[in-house]
Structure formats: C-alpha cells, structure tokens
C-alpha cells in the first residue's frame, strides 16, 4: 500500500509520516518512506511518501498512491496526481494561503472547486476540520491524530487498533489520554461521514 501524507510546513506532516511508518514496522510489515521538503523553515509544502510492501524506491510514482492524507485542502490537490483512480483522500478543511501568494495578490480558490476536482479524479473524499474537533474536545493539540483516526477507521490499513493505541501511549506517555481522545474523534468522524 502506498500512502502520501502532505501538509504545510509546521503542521507536523513528517512526524505523522514517521508515526504511521513505525506503526507499519511494529505490525511486522515491510516499509520504506521518504520526505520531500526543501529547507527546514515553516510554511512550505511538505510531502511524505510511505510505501508498505516490496518496492525498493522510496518515492511513490505518479498514479500509484492508494491514500492521500492532507493537513490542508490545496495541498491535497497538489499531490492528487500521485493518487490511483478511485483512491481515497482525507483532508483537513482549514485553508492556508502562503504569505508569498498574498504578496503576489493571489486569492485562495473556492474550496468547493478543489473538492470537485478531487472527486472527479475520481477519488473518495473525506473532509473534516481537525482544529474544530480539537477545540471541541478541549485539548491543546492532536490534529494529526484525528487524521490518523480517520485513516485507521477506513479499514484499508491492515493493522490492529491496539497496536496503534499502544504506540501512541508509549510515544507520548504524558499526553496519552488526550491523544487517544483525538484518535477516537477521528474514528467517529469517519463513522458519521459514512452514514451521511
């Protein structure tokens, strides 16, 4: 399985990638991953490639990703060419326009146009506002764990929920309770979107 994780520098995209990569590793799967970002500053596009299986090259070829997980809608569109037809896109709905784009007088496109292009790819699109969910849960952070929760609940990532939860607890023991809340909120989001 090939997964693209993307977002805007500062959103923790690479950490989420490492977490999912290690989940695969701890579940006994063969994995390989690569991050592509330019310089280490905030605010640029970040793409993380994660391959589970027998391929050796660290980058996913265009048209070969099963899933895109994105922290920002425009970034989901930016990597859409990596997605297989009928693949899955999970994206946070919070939009971010680069300050450089602002300087050049560009506006953020109509978000519905972005969704339409993704759906017409064709792709199955799941959208959620992770920031709002975190605020509703009244916890300080965990937006990426909400995304992870949605991804887990899709049922295409063949790893056990126990492994994932145990890893999250071991990784950040002090924040275990909040982090699990965020993960579970992700599970719920997906259930809601499927029933809708």
């Amino acid at each position, binding site marked *: 399985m090939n997964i693209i994780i993307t977002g805007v520098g500062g959103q923790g995209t690479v950490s989420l990638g490492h977490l999912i990569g290690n989940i695969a590793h701890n579940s*006994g799967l063969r994995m390989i991953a690569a991050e592509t970002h330019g310089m280490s500053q905030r605010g640029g596009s970040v793409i993380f490639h994660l391959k589970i299986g027998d391929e050796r090259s660290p980058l996913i070829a*265009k048209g070969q990703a099963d899933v895109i997980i994105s922290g920002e809608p425009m970034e989901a569109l930016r990597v859409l060419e990596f997605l297989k037809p009928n693949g899955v896109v999970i994206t946070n709905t919070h939009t971010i326009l680069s300050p450089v784009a*602002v300087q050049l007088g560009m506006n953020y496109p109509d978000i519905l146009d972005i969704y339409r292009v993704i759906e017409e790819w064709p792709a199955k699109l799941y959208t959620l506002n992770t920031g709002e969910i975190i605020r509703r849960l009244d916890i300080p952070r965990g937006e990426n764990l909400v995304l992870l929760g949605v991804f887990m609940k899709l049922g295409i990532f063949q790893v056990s929920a126990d492994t994932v939860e145990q890893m999250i607890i071991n990784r950040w023991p002090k924040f275990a309770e909040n982090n699990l809340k965020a993960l579970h909120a992700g599970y719920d989001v997906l259930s809601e979107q499927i029933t809708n």
Partner: protein
Amino acid sequence: MKKTNTITLLGNEAIAYGLADGGVRFASAYPGTPSTEIMETLIKKFKTRMNADWASNEAVAMEEAAAAAIAGTDSAVMMKSVGLNVAMDPLMTLALMGVTSAMVIVVGDDPGMHSSQNEQDNRNISKFSGIPMFEPSSIQECYDFAREAVQFSRKFKIPVFLRSVTRISHEMGQLELSPPVVNDIEPYERDPSRFVSIPGNARKNKSRMMKIQREIDEYVQEKKYYREYKIGKGNEYLVITSGSSSTFAHDALSYFGFNAHVLVPGLINPFPSNRFVELCSDYENVIVIEELDPFIEEKITILAYKNKLNINIIGKDQGITSIEGEITGEILMENLARYFNLEHEIPKTLTADQKALLKIRPPVLCPGCPHRSSYVAIKKALRKDQPIYSNDIGCYALGFLPPHNTADTLVAMGASIPMATAIAISRPEHTSVAMIGDSTFWHSGVSGITNAVWKGANLLVIVLDNLATAMTGDQPNPSANKDPEDSLVDLSIEETCKGMGAWVRVINPMEYKDTQRLIDEAKAIKGVKVLILREPCALNVVKEAKIKKVKLPLIAINDNCNGCKLCITPLGCPALSLNEDNIAEVDPELCNGCTFCQKLCNRDAIEVVSR
C-alpha cells in the same frame, strides 16, 4: 512477522550507527542538508564512544579528521555536496599521503537541488582524487557500508568516501544492527617523510599511492563489492545501476517484467570491471540507469573499447535517464517505455484549469523571524541609496522572495562579503551591502572581512545574528553554543570585527527605529561597517518559552484598523492577512508574538494581549 532485532532509522542515522559500530573514535562535520543528521546522531547517541563535534567549516572538519587518522585514531568527517568544494584543498593532498588508521569521508549529494545551490555529482571527485567510494542504496547498506568503509580505510591506510544522496539520507527504513567492532588503537608514530607534503615527499607519495591504487583495484575485483540479481529469466539485458538509482531501477524493471540481470556496485570506484567484462560475454544490450552524470556509462564505455566488447550501451543518449535532476518512478518508467516501445499508460495529470487552483507555497521565513524585521528596517533605511545586496546562505536567503527582495546575488558560503567588496570598489555609485548569518560568518565570513578592511573598501556588512545555525535545524556555532554542559568556548563576532579594524555596532532588529538610525549612521562613515542585528531565531524563542512555561504575547487587531496594509505589505508575516472585510487579521496559531507588526502600524490598531 517482524524480526525482533530490526529497527527503523533514517539513512543518515543508519550511517552514524555504522560509523560508530565500525569503530570511529573521532568525528567532525559542518551542517548541511542532506548530511546534517549524521553528526547530530553521533553527538546524541555515541558521545561516550568518540569525540564528535561540529567544526567551523568543511575544510576545518576535513583537516581535523585527517590529523586524527594520521595520528592513529579512526575518524570520520561529514558534509553536504557543495561542502566538499570547501574541503578540496586538504582532500587532494590527503589523497596522495593517505592516513595511518581509518578515515571515512561522508558526502551527501543533492540531486534535484532540494536545498543546494548547484547539482554537482561528487562521484566525479572520487575519480579525480583516486579515493575509493561506497554508495549505499538502502538503509541497511547505509549501516553496512559505513562499517565496511572504516575497515577498508584501515586496511589500505587511505581515506574512503561514502556517498549518499537526499533520497537515501532522508529515507526511513528497516535495518538490522550487528555487534560493534573494536579496532586496536595504535600508538602515535612519526612519519614526516610521508606527512610533510613538500615537493620531494609529495613525489614519493604519488608513486606510493599509484601502487596502492593498483593493489586496491585487484583487491576489490576479488572482494565482490557488488550485488547481482535477476528479474524474470534475466537473459535479455544486462543492467548496471547503483545507489538511489538502483532502487528506482528495481521497481521499474520489475513493473515491466524485463528479463534482466542487474549488477549493483556498492563500491562504485574502483568499479567491478572484471565482473562486468565477464557478464558481457552473455549480453549484447547493456542498460545503464544512473542519476546525474554518466559516471558508470563512461566507465563501461572505456571498458568496452579496451576489452573489445561487442555490446550496445543504452544510457543517457538513449534518454533512459537525464543528466538533470532526480530520478523518479514515473520518469524512469516513461523513459524505458519510450525507448523499448513498451505498453505503458502515462499517469493521468491535472489539466491546466485544475492546476490553476494551486497557489504557490514556497518555504518562507517563520512568523516572528528576526530576519524579516531586519529586512524591513534595512530596506526602509536604504530606500534612496540604490543598494546592491550580496546575500549569503542561510534562512535569510529567503529575503530573495517578495516582499523583501533583498538578494541580488547568492553564490557560496561566505561569498557575500568578497562580492560586496568588489561591488563597493567597482560600482561606487551604489551602496554595497553584504548580508551574512552568524554561522556563515564563522564558516568563511572572517576572511572576507580581512580582505575588505585591507582594501579599504566602503561597504556595509549586516550580520544577521540569530544565535543559531537555523536553516539546518539549530546546530551550535562559535558564537552560539547550545549546551552549557559541553566544553565549547564562546567567541564574539563584534570583538573579532573590531580587532580587524572595522566600525562595529550591535542592535536588536526588533528595535525598528533604532536599527534604521544605526544604518543611517553607518552610511555616513567610510570603510567597512559591520552592523550586527542580534535576536534569537523565532523557533528558539518559542522553544525557550515552552521550557520555561511562559506564555508568549499575542497580538489583536482593534477597531482602528482601516485595512491600509502598512503592517502586512512590507513584512509578509504568515500570521497576518486581510480578512473578508478588508481588515487585518491575525492567525493566533501561527503568531509567535514578536510584536514587530505593531511597530509598523500608525493608527494604534495592533494591541499586544496575553494568550
């Protein structure tokens, strides 16, 4: 199921583990993407086993590692692609004199120039210098080859290269560790006739080294520093590929079901020539898959001529790979399909209309970055002086982007000051400004100041001192030590420049008005003026606040705002924008509370509040 002894590491971490487990006891490096994490890992994990510290530049790091290895301590040195240029002077002489124990030179190349100013293929330096070069293609090989490089170097008493590329260095994958080796420590033995490279000794060294190279060449032919495998029946094509390229080759050839025998040299120089020639008796068509220069291709072209091989070489001229940029899966598949007429569906692309929805998102200076404040003040103060900005390498190079546009040139580490010196001399009608960071100042800025003062040039040197080597992820430098526990000594940029006879002032660039005033003052003075704009990197301000559990301030926009954009336009802070009602708006998630924007507002519309 998973084997219990495998772990996941980044390529650079695996290299560090391999060096340490191979017996390295002294390591030096200068940070640079994609090589930085090797030294970071050595410092974090292996300080008890070795002396491992950053050096002030790559030549210094190379010379340190060389001396350690000449004195009998197994050593390693790490740098990025272009860093090797800085270290070339000692390198070329070391290549002739060799060392007495082990010395591994790790170089991280950057095909695709993700974070470099050129795309040099340092495999050529291995050929140029005659120093053997290993090239790993997986996380496991990063570890294994680093270990092997130490032993190889010990055996022949010469430096050995380990070349990685961005894809391998920043790849994350699984590996199995082996028990560390413990090499004997030899007592120091003088050998000035070898290690004092005056011409008479150098000539002897060259003859000696030519002999060693012939021995190495024979040794590697037997030692089999290569892998081979078959795809399909393996009888139609011979494929030669190495390093990162070999992983893309594996996937693309398997995808198309080529009948190929694949030869992957792990040591790319000296090349496994005997094995190659032997294999050529069974194959007519040889495909070469390699990123950047035709290094392997030229090597086998020579071998084919010398050995009268009856083969067809299919490589760069046939468009299998390009001399430009990184190999990716889809490009390699497309090239193979085109040349071999294979059925292949070109992956679907977004239409131009769909792509128009994508707005640019380059990396930008962080919210609250002191460089942004510096640039606003500098531009304001010099707006009537026709400034020419010679910029340098660091986060501040992003001043190249709007709204700052504060870079006319950027060439190499430390180049800003010499370039600004020549501009000052040759174009006196302009104000010549050099901009350089603190780490880059120590790397190679000092020699630029020496030269500028010596020549009596009339220029303004702005040292953007954020007390960190920020671009590569916050390493220490001589005036920014991070760990009070270690034995590093603090140096002073101002005392250094004063000592050389420059006019020097230090100011916090967050003091907007005072900074402008100092620039005005500097303009009126002849000679070399060094203005040090000192304020910590915003990421460290945030980090520090977290550690000390203090809340950073936040700004709020009040009703006085009329949407004039005086705070937004010159600053370009990612946290500030105009909302739908054409009123300034702050994103509290992004704002780091530097409060600089408040200084730009002349309607008192920006208030500082607590979080």
